[in-house]
């Protein structure tokens, strides 16, 4: 089929590499790519979209394929079924070229040979398969050690930052934990069993290069306890190179808790107990300052975009957890299972965990997952006095109070009057 893409052609100029140029050249090899471009050009012409979404399951799996049917299949027969297969990426998106070529080859052999590196959930997206090919590409890649990702009300493909593989900031092994969680819970990736989707994203420090805080139901963020590492010699070197004013303006005054100060001898004084591990000073003076040695993670919960209650950011749930040994990993697994059990038993259809927390209240959620309240979970305590103190109030459904509040022990008249009225 001849290419007819006058509008897309206008995306071939300019300095940024053009997917149009790439796909046009490639359409010689795979005819459906030409059809895709022609349909896309019609979208540009009419400001309209021609894909219908539907569900397709690879046998034995409930997730991993995003099915698409073209409304213009009579005109573009190769787009009649044009599905995406999600493949779990290597943690941290690291590749050797022989593995990356396997993806290119399999996508070309079975489908349209279009890859997206990567989707916003982290997966490798392979585009352009019909029902059969979705399976054959998955089959072929599985032979080579790959696996398909999640979709629907399932655990979704995990995403992590490069972490300890190439970053001095990383406070835990993001890649290892990502692989561990993926492998441990792979069943939940493949078979949607949840009330709605659940995403983990893992970042090695508060810089959050994996975009976890707003893009995942359970952001796992590296941190440390105790003191950060300060090399005063290198602090002095830095101050000498940049000047005191620069350091004061760009490091000292930017500390959110004002817990660092520059001393007269150009060393840094740190009130470690007030450091909230935001990473700013370390980012700026990374040769002089480093995360502390006793490293672990902070676990938040409930980040996502708008639907239904508006945008949510991860809520602090576990301020610090070690995540190094196998026992630590077991503890994390057990924690995740408790969260899933409570959320899935009580969540409504299509209710992400953050929305669930907003509906039932954080304290109910904490009780449900067996976590004690902690002042670090809130910015400030409540300011509304309308409270039902369960320990102090009479049972709502009759029966004995759990504890008698002292004021009631005086048997005021009002109590007698109330009893008389019963």
């Amino acid at each position: 089929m001849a290419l007819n893409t006058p509008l897309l052609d206008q995306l071939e100029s300019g300095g940024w590499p053009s997917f149009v140029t790439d796909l046009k050249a490639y359409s010689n090899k795979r005819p459906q790519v030409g059809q895709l471009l022609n349909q896309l050009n019609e979208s540009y012409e009419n400001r309209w979209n021609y894909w219908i979404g539907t569900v397709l399951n690879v046998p034995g799996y409930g997730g991993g394929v995003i099915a698409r049917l073209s409304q213009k299949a009579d005109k573009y027969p190769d787009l009649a079924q044009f599905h995406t297969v999600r493949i779990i990426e290597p943690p941290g998106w690291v590749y050797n070229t022989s593995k990356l070529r396997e993806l290119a080859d399999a996508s070309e052999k079975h489908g349209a040979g279009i890859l997206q590196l990567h989707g916003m959930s982290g997966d490798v997206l392979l585009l352009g398969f019909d029902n059969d090919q979705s399976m054959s590409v998955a089959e072929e890649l599985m032979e080579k050690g790959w696996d398909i990702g999640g979709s629907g009300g399932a655990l979704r493909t995990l995403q992590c930052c490069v972490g300890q593989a190439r970053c001095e900031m990383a406070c835990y092994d993001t890649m290892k934990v990502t692989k561990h969680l993926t492998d441990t819970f792979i069943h939940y990736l493949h078979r949607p069993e949840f009330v709605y989707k659940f995403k983990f994203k893992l970042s090695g420090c508060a810089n959050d290069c994996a975009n976890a805080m707003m893009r995942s139901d359970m952001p796992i963020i590296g941190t440390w306890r105790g003191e950060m590492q300060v090399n005063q010699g290198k602090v002095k070197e830095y101050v000498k190179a940049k000047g005191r004013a620069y350091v004061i303006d760009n490091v000292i005054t930017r500390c959110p808790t004002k817990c660092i100060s520059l001393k007269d001898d150009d060393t840094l004084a740190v009130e470690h107990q007030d450091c909230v591990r935001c990473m700013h000073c370390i980012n700026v003076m990374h040769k002089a300052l480093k995360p502390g040695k006793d490293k672990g993670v902070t676990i938040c919960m409930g980040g996502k975009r708008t639907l239904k209650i508006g945008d949510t950011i991860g809520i602090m749930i576990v301020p610090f957890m070690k995540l190094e040994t196998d026992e630590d990993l077991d503890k994390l697994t057990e924690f995740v299972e408790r969260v899933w059990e409570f959320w899935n038993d009580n969540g409504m259809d299509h209710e992400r965990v953050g929305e669930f927390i907003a509906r039932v209240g954080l304290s109910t959620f904490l009780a449900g997952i067996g976590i004690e309240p902690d002042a670090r979970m809130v910015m400030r305590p409540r300011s509304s006095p309308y409270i039902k103190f369960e320990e102090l109030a009479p049972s709502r459904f009759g029966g004995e109070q759990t504890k008698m509040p002292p004021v009631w022990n005086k048997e005021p008249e009002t109590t007698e009057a109330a009893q008389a009225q019963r």
Partner: protein
Amino acid sequence: MTDMSETKMAPRDQGAPDYKINLHPVMLKNYGKWDYHERVRPGVLVHVAENGEKIWTIRAGSPRTLSADKVREICAVADKYCKGYLRFTTRANVEFLVDDESLIQPLIDEVEKGSLKFPVGGTGPSVSNVAHTQGWMHCNLPGSDAAGSVKALLDELIEDFKSERMPNRVHISSSCCQINCSSHADISVIVQHHHPPRINHSNMQICELPKVVAICPVAAIRPAVVNGHESVEVVKEKCMYCGACHGQCPSMEIRDAETDTLSIWVGGKTSNARTPPTLMKLAVWGLPNNPPRWPEVGQAVRTILDAYRKGGKAYERVGEWIERIGWQRFFEVTGFPFTRYHIEDSSDALLTFNRSTMVRI
């Protein structure tokens, strides 16, 4: 066509690929033993291990959507200079990893001027690659395109990608419906609809509890009998045109080629550095959905970036800069009008008002 259940594939739960076989040997050897890094020049980082070993990263902007041939071209570069090891980033940059300093310039030349023609940049205080979604190329919901509009936008911003001249890093994202797969960023482009969904009653497949009733954020949808058949109706006064129902039910069409517009949001940030993560806020609305190059969007983003570059202090992200100068001044320096639609009316609204006498007069 064979019935899929007759074919041989049995369920396998293999899990995530082995990252160790995908790691550059220098990274594998120094795993967890990195000492510091430096920005050598825009687009080039060097990470130095405790034992003094170094790995250089050359970061290039990719268009995210790649043909198999283009992927092989990327592989060829990595084979030639990187011992066959590379990496991608959250924002679809490709990172070439080199353990020999003398190969940096030849690699950059090849990436920029060879068959790839990818720009090198995106490190430090630059505008990184724009995170985007599927758009008209492959989603069933989009009101606009993603790959194309982002390509056009990045043509405008390429010098900001290649240089490190911003106060701090700038993340931009672009989403083609309000589900907003590309999420929070310093600057974000989002489609907006301006009508309630049109319901195709003849096509309506009613499930036991219509999922659209459950999904509507403002409870505007209710079951109704239309022409003797079960269907749903939308209370027009309640509907705020979010399109959530359209995502759930293809018989409820929210998009409109004539009236859909684009809006730009600013000040989102996921990192915890200095200030906690922040949601993005509305900057400007009503931009035309104008393929193939969406010039009005490019212009508005340019305006924001120019103002930020001029007024932001080092290490201030876009949102931090605006919070410091105040939103009133943000609208002054960008020239965007502040309108009634900028005033929050969600359940968080009270917390967004200025409950003080503190204003700049």
